[in-house]
C-alpha cells in the first residue's frame, strides 16, 4: 500500500493538472482551472511527504528530524518568497517573472540530477543516460532563462550577441556533452562519473547562455515560450530519472504548452522555429534585400482633430503596442474608450500575437487597466472588420501594423501577419517620432493618405486626448 497509495494520488494530481490547463481555455473557467491546479499540487506534495514517512516507518530509511526540518524549511521559505514575488510584481514585469521562474525549474532539475547521481552509484546505463539528459536540459534552461531575464530587465543589452562561428561553437558544446555522457556511462568509478556529470552541467550552462544571447531583444516572446517548453522537458527528464510518472506527465504538458506558444509566436513573427532553437535568428534581418525606401510626407494632426474624429465615429478600433505599456498609458486609454462607449461609439481593442513581450501579455495589461475582455479581440477576429471601421487608433505599435509585411517583398518583415489597419477609414498613429520600429524598419503606414500622425509621448498625448474627448 505504501507504494500504491502515492501512485494513485499522482494519477489524481495529473488529472487535475490537465483539467487546470483545460480551464484556462476560456476566461470564464480560468479561475477554476487555476484552483484545480493548486489542489493537484497540494495533493502531490502532501501525499509525497506522507509516503516518505509511511515507507520509511520502522526502517532505517525513516527521515531524520533534521532532514524533515530542512525539507519543511525549504518549502516554507520557497513558498514565502514565491508569494511575495507574486504579490509585488508589476504586470509589465510579467515576462521577467516568467523567465526567472523557468530558471528555477532548470536549476531544480540540475540539482535533482546531481543528487540522484550521488545517491545511485553504479546503476544501469539507461538510468545514467536519463540523468545526463535531465541535467543537460535543466542546465540549458537555467542559464538560458537567466540571460533572458537579464535581457528583459535591461540589465544586459537586448542586442543579439553574434559570435563568429557560433553554430560551430554550439555544435562543439553539444558534442562535448555527448562525449562526456559516454565517459559517464562507462566510468569505472562513481567519482569519475560524477565529475563527467559536472562537466556536462558546465558545458550545458555555457550552451544555454550562448543560445539565448544570440537572440535579439525584440524576439523575446519566442525565447520565453521556448524556455517555457524547455523547463517542461527538464521536469519530464527528472521524472524519467526518478521513475516518477507524475513528473513525466506534468513535464510533458508544460513542454507541449511551451512548444505551442513558441510555434504561435514564430508564425506571428514569420520566423522559422528551427532558427529560433539554434539562436541568432535576429541576423536574418540583414540578410534580406534592401527594403523599399518609403518616401512621402506624414500628415501631422492635433489633439482636437483626433477628438473630433473619434467622437464622430461609429466604429473605433484601438491597436495597443508595447509602447503603450512602457508609457503606462493603458489606464488613460481605457478611460478614453469608456468615454467613447458612453457616447455609443462601438470600441474594440485589436491585439497582435506579439504585441507585448510575452504571449498574451497585452491582454493582461488591458485587463489590469479594467478593459473588458469581451471587447479585446485577436488579430484574426478583427482583420475582416477593419474595412468597416471608421478610425483606428494605433498607440505605441509599429511593426505589427506595417503594410510592408504584405506588399514589399524586400522588407525584412515581409510575410509576417499584421493588423491591416490601413483598410480602415482613418488611422491615427500616436508615435514619439517618425523613427523606425523595434525591428528597425521604416513604416510606410505613416505616409498613407488616410493616416494622421499624432506625435509626442504616448502618456501625455492620451491624457490630453481624454480631456478633449470629455469636453465634446
Amino acid at each position, binding site marked *: 500500500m505504501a507504494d500504491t497509495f502515492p501512485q494513485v494520488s499522482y494519477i489524481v494530481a495529473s488529472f487535475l493538472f490537465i483539467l487546470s490547463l483545460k480551464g484556462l481555455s476560456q*476566461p470564464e473557467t480560468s479561475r477554476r482551472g487555476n484552483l484545480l491546479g*493548486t489542489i493537484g499540487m497540494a495533493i502531490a506534495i502532501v501525499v509525497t511527504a506522507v509516503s516518505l514517512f509511511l515507507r520509511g516507518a520502522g526502517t532505517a530509511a525513516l527521515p531524520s528530524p533534521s532532514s524533515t526540518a530542512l525539507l519543511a524549511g525549504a518549502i516554507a521559505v520557497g*513558498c514565502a*518568497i514565491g508569494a511575495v514575488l507574486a504579490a509585488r510584481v508589476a504586470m509589465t514585469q510579467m515576462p521577467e517573472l516568467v523567465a526567472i521562474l523557468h530558471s528555477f525549474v532548470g536549476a531544480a532539475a540540475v540539482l535533482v540530477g546531481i543528487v540522484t547521481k550521488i545517491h545511485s552509484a553504479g546503476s544501469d546505463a539507461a538510468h545514467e543516460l536519463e540523468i545526463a539528459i535531465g541535467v543537460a536540459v535543466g542546465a540549458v534552461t537555467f542559464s538560458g532563462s537567466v540571460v533572458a531575464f537579464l535581457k528583459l530587465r535591461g540589465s544586459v543589452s537586448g542586442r543579439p550577441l553574434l559570435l563568429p562561428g557560433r553554430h560551430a561553437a554550439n555544435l562543439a558544446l553539444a558534442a562535448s556533452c555527448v562525449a562526456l555522457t559516454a565517459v559517464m556511462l562507462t566510468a569505472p568509478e562513481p567519482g569519475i562519473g560524477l565529475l563527467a556529470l559536472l562537466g556536462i552541467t558546465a558545458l550545458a550552462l555555457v550552451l544555454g547562455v550562448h543560445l539565448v544571447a544570440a537572440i535579439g531583444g525584440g524576439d523575446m516572446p519566442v525565447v520565453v515560450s521556448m524556455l517555457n517548453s524547455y523547463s517542461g522537458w527538464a521536469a519530464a527528464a527528472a521524472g524519467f530519472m526518478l521513475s516518477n510518472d507524475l513528473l513525466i506527465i506534468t513535464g510533458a504538458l508544460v513542454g507541449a504548452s511551451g512548444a505551442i506558444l513558441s510555434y504561435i509566436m514564430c508564425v506571428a513573427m514569420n520566423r522559422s522555429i528551427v532558427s529560433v532553437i539554434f539562436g541568432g535568428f535576429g541576423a536574418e534581418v540583414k540578410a534580406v534585400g534592401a527594403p523599399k525606401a518609403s518616401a512621402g510626407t506624414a500628415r501631422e494632426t492635433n489633439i482636437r482633430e483626433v477628438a473630433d474624429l473619434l467622437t464622430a465615429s461609429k466604429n473605433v478600433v484601438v491597436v495597443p503596442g508595447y509602447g503603450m505599456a512602457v508609457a503606462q498609458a493603458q489606464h488613460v486609454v481605457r478611460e478614453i474608450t469608456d468615454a467613447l462607449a458612453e457616447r455609443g461609439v462601438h470600441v474594440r481593442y485589436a491585439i497582435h500575437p506579439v504585441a507585448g513581450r*510575452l504571449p498574451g501579455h497585452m491582454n493582461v495589461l488591458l485587463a489590469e487597466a479594467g478593459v473588458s475582455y469581451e471587447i479585446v479581440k485577436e488579430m484574426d477576429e478583427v482583420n475582416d472588420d477593419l474595412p468597416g471601421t471608421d478610425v483606428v487608433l494605433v498607440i505605441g505599435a509599429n511593426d505589427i501594423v506595417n503594410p510592408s509585411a504584405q506588399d514589399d517583398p524586400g522588407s525584412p518583415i515581409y510575410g509576417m501577419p499584421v493588423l491591416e489597419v490601413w483598410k480602415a477609414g482613418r488611422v491615427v498613429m500616436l508615435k514619439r517620432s517618425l523613427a523606425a520600429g523595434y525591428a528597425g524598419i521604416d513604416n510606410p503606414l505613416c505616409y498613407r493618405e488616410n493616416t494622421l500622425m499624432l506625435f509626442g509621448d504616448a502618456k501625455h498625448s492620451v491624457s490630453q486626448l481624454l480631456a478633449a474627448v470629455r469636453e465634446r
Partner: protein
Amino acid sequence: MRGLFRASGRGHGVADESLGIQQQDKPARTAATGRLTVGIPKEIHPGECRVAAVPRTVPRLLKLGYDVVVETGAGAAAAFMDPAYVEAGARIAPDARALWAEADLVLKVRAPERNEALQAHEADLLKEGARIISFLWPGQHRDLVEHLARRKATVLAMDAVPRITRAQKLDALSAMANIAGYRAIIEAASVYGRFLGGQITAAGRVRPATVLVIGAGVAGLSAVSAASALGAIVKAFDTREAVREQVESLGAQFVTFQFDEKGEGEGGYAKQMSDAFLAAEQEFIAGHAKDADIVVTTALIPGQPAPKLVTSGAVVSMRPGSVIVDLAAEWGGNCALTERDAIVLRYGVTIIGLTDLTSRLARQASEMYATTVANLLDDMTKDGTFTLDLHDEIQRGVLVLNEGDLMWPPPKPEVRAGAPQPAPPQPVVRAAKPPRSPWPARVALCVAAAALALLGVYAPPALVPHLTVFLLACVVGWHVVWNVTPALHTPLMSVTNAISGIIVIGGMLLTAGPRVGLGSALAAIAVLVASINIAGGFLVTHRMLKMFRK
C-alpha cells in the same frame, strides 16, 4: 527685391530682368517691407461664388511672409465678409483694378478671363512678371496660356497637381470633386419628389430610393456616401475592380461587368475604352438605370470628351420622376440628353447638367480650395520668399509658365498612384511560401523509427511504461493547450510555471533521508526554488485572472 524670387533651373536671367521692372511700379509700403503682396480678386465668372482665400487661411499666408490684399466683396458670395478678412490681417482693395495693380501673386479660383465691367482681360490686368495660381486647364485653354506668356507671367495650375500621395493635401480637384458629388445628391433629392430613405408610417410604407452612381472616383464615392446617409439603396458602377472595397466600405453595392480590357489608366484615372467596350458598357448601365430612381454620372477621362454612358434609350426606359445628375456636363456629359448648365425634363426624367455644383456649396468649397492653395504656397515658400523648385515633382507638375516660358506639360512622372486611393490591388495572400519539401518529415520519421528500434533492443523494460505515459501526456498537452484562448496565454505560462514546480517532489524524495549530507542539502535547494515556482506561479496567475472581467 532682387533675390526674392529664385528660380532654380532655366529662366534665371529673365527673372532678374522682370523683377527689375516690378520694383519700379511697386507701392512704397511693400518695397519698404520687402514682402510680396498676395492678391485675392473677386471672381467674375457668372455664377461663380467661390473665393481663393478665406479669413481662416489669411493668417497662414501672413505667417509665410506675404502681405494679403482682398478685393472688396471678394468673399461676399460665399458669406465671407470684408470685416472678417480685415480681422484676419488682410487689407481691402477698393476695386478690381487697384487689386490687380498691387498684387505680385494672385490667387484665383477660375482661370483669368475678360472682365466686361472693366473692358479688360484679367491677364492684362495682371502685373507684368507677376504670378498667378488658379484652376487653368492649360490643355483646353491654349490661347489663355499664350496670353499669359506674353505678360511674362509665372502661372501655376491647381488642376495640374500630380496624383501622388505626397500631393494629397494640395489636391484641389479631389476636394472639389468631393463637394460636387455631395451636392449632386442634394440637387437630385430636391427635384426627386420622394423620400430617399425608406419609412413605415401610418400613411403607408415608403420604399427607399435606388441611387446608381456611375464612376467611383472621388466625386462618385462622395455621392455614394451622401446618398447612403440619406437612406437610399446605393449601387456604384465602375470598371476598375480596385475600387470595389471602397464602395463596399461605404455601404453601397459595387456593380461591374467583365470585359477583356483593363480599366485603369495612367496616373490612376480611368482610360478610354474601345467602341465594343463602350457599347457593352452602355447596355449594362441601361439595365441598371431602368431600376434606379436617381442616376449620378461622374465618368471622366482626362483630356477627352466625357464618354456617353447613358444613352437616350436608357433615359426612355427609366421611370418618370427619376433624376439624372451629370457631373461630366462641363465636358460634354455622360448622358446623351444632358444640356450644359441647365435642368431639363426629357421623357419624364429630370436631367441636371449644372456645372457650378461646387459654387453652390461656396462656403465649403472656398474653405477647402483656399486650404489647398495655402498648402501649395507653404511648399513654395522658403524663409519668407517665393521659391520654385523645378526638381520637385509637385511644383514642376503645377508649373504652366515660368516667367512666360512654357513649362507645360511636365515630363512624365515616374511614380504611379492607384486611383483614387493608392490601394495596391495586392492579393490578400501572404508571402508565397515555396511548397514544403517532404524530406525533413521523412528523415524525422526514419530517425524516430531508428530510435524506437534501438529502444526496443537496448532499453530496460522498466523504461517502456514511462515512455508510454510520456508520449500520451505530450499528445494530451498538445490538444488541451491548443484550446487555450490567446488572451490567456500569459496566465497559461504562469500556470505551467507553477505546475512545472512539480519537480519539488523529486527534491523532496532526495532531501528527506536518514542523514543530512551534501546530497540532501543540494536537494533542499531544489525544493526551495521549486517551491518559489509553485507559490509564485499559482498566486500570480490568480492575481492576473482576477483582473479579467466582462
